[in-house]
């Protein structure tokens, strides 16, 4: 995808966002509506300006294909792992989930070699990191962590 096309998409998305915000802002009692409506108007104006710039002054844009070479596999793996991690820690508890998360994601992002040694190493990593986090957060700082049934 070229920068030009991307800019079209972005401006359209932002204009749509402005539309939703504007309809919601219509219900705000005066004079509190002035500020948000002004901000929305400026946002819409700038999104429109970006559209105009992309159509008529393509030279002003950085050329090239921003998404070229993106390693979608790795990025998506991380995002999905984090989302699963979020739902799991809600039910299971922060420490146990984080331990597994560290092992699994580090393995997935590494060279994915298999062997007792590799997993032992990851296990040690998980224990050490979570030990430190536990010491810092629970013992020293007494910061509450998301509760769950395990730990």
């Amino acid at each position, binding site marked *: 995808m070229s920068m030009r096309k991307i800019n079209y998409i972005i401006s359209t998305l932002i204009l749509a966002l402005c539309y939703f915000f504007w309809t919601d802002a219509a219900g705000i009692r005066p004079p509190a509506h002035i500020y948000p409506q002004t901000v929305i108007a400026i946002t819409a104006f700038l999104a429109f300006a970006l559209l105009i710039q992309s159509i008529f002054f393509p030279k002003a844009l950085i050329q090239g294909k921003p998404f070229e070479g993106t390693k979608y596999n790795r990025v998506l793996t991380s995002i999905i792992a984090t989302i*699963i991690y979020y739902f799991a820690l809600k*039910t*299971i508890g922060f420490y146990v989930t984080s331990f*597994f998360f560290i092992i*699994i994601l580090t*393995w997935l992002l590494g060279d994915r070699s*298999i062997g007792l040694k590799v997993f032992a190493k990851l296990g040690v990593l998980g224990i050490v990191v979570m030990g430190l986090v536990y010491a810092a957060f629970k013992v020293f700082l007494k910061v509450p962590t998301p509760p*769950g049934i*395990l730990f």
Partner: protein
Amino acid sequence: MNKKLIAVLLIIGFLLTLGLAGCQKAEEKQQDGGKAEETYPSKDITVIIPFTAGGSSDVQARIVEKYFKEEFGVNMIITYKEGAGGEVGFTELAKSKADGYVIGGLNVPHIILQPLARETEFNIDSFAYIGQMVNDPQLIAVLKDSKYNTLQELIDDAKAKPGQITLGNVGTFSGHHIASLNFMNLTGTEFTLIPYKGAADQIVALQGGHVNAIMGNLNDVMRDLDKYKILGITTEERHYLAPEVPTFKELGLDMTQGITRLFAAPKDIAPEKLARLKEGFENIAKNPEYLKDMEKIGQPEEWKDGEKVYDDLKKEVETATKLLEEYDLLDKK
């Protein structure tokens, strides 16, 4: 291929743990409802404070914490759930498990006004009230060198120039706001109300001369009494922390208004547990050491039992609704 298989296995294992954990949780819940524990409390009690660490509610809770262990034999663990003027924390408490191990601090009139102002997931019936510990009365204050010397002078001037005198508040749909509305309603005046974000901003605005007067809390002006003139205080009788200040009643205005801090549990708490909490908090509230500490932090203490609190809340909801309708501040839904 092999690698992928292992990855899949790992994920399945992980999900299984998740599922197992879920079942366990369900079991735990059942057991909990089954039979009442013999001794309550048998583990630490979490107290939800719906404001930031270091705020007035927190400082007061910290004082309670000092005496909590002695009274209940377990620790009190303060958890902050701030956001949306306390709403996030109130909602959290209303939805908490009513096993007696989660209680929370509530502020009045916040819990009355928020459900009126917008859709909320709690109202005053969502809680079982333990008791009220602080009653911080509202007052009207001006700067020391202000031209107003009495409340009457301020009222007269406001009548002469409707809308031109500014009165600083903290927040909208807050104790300050409702007190100001009540004041304007009773005196037939019209002030321009300026809702500051917090008490600190309000005090800065007053000291810097950006507002003409403030509807403030006793606790906030106590620290520098010699900088202000307090024109009147909204209590039944003269207040023990500021005995020289006339009450609104003496000045012929029938209003008493304050911000009160109470402790409450989720609605469905077992009656015997609630009774234990009430007893314990009352003991703390009457402990002379506690009272000394409260005086140090300048928060006007006033114990009120949970049942009385609830009765008064119901009355307050009515008056507040009427007042807000009169000023057309409720969204018609």
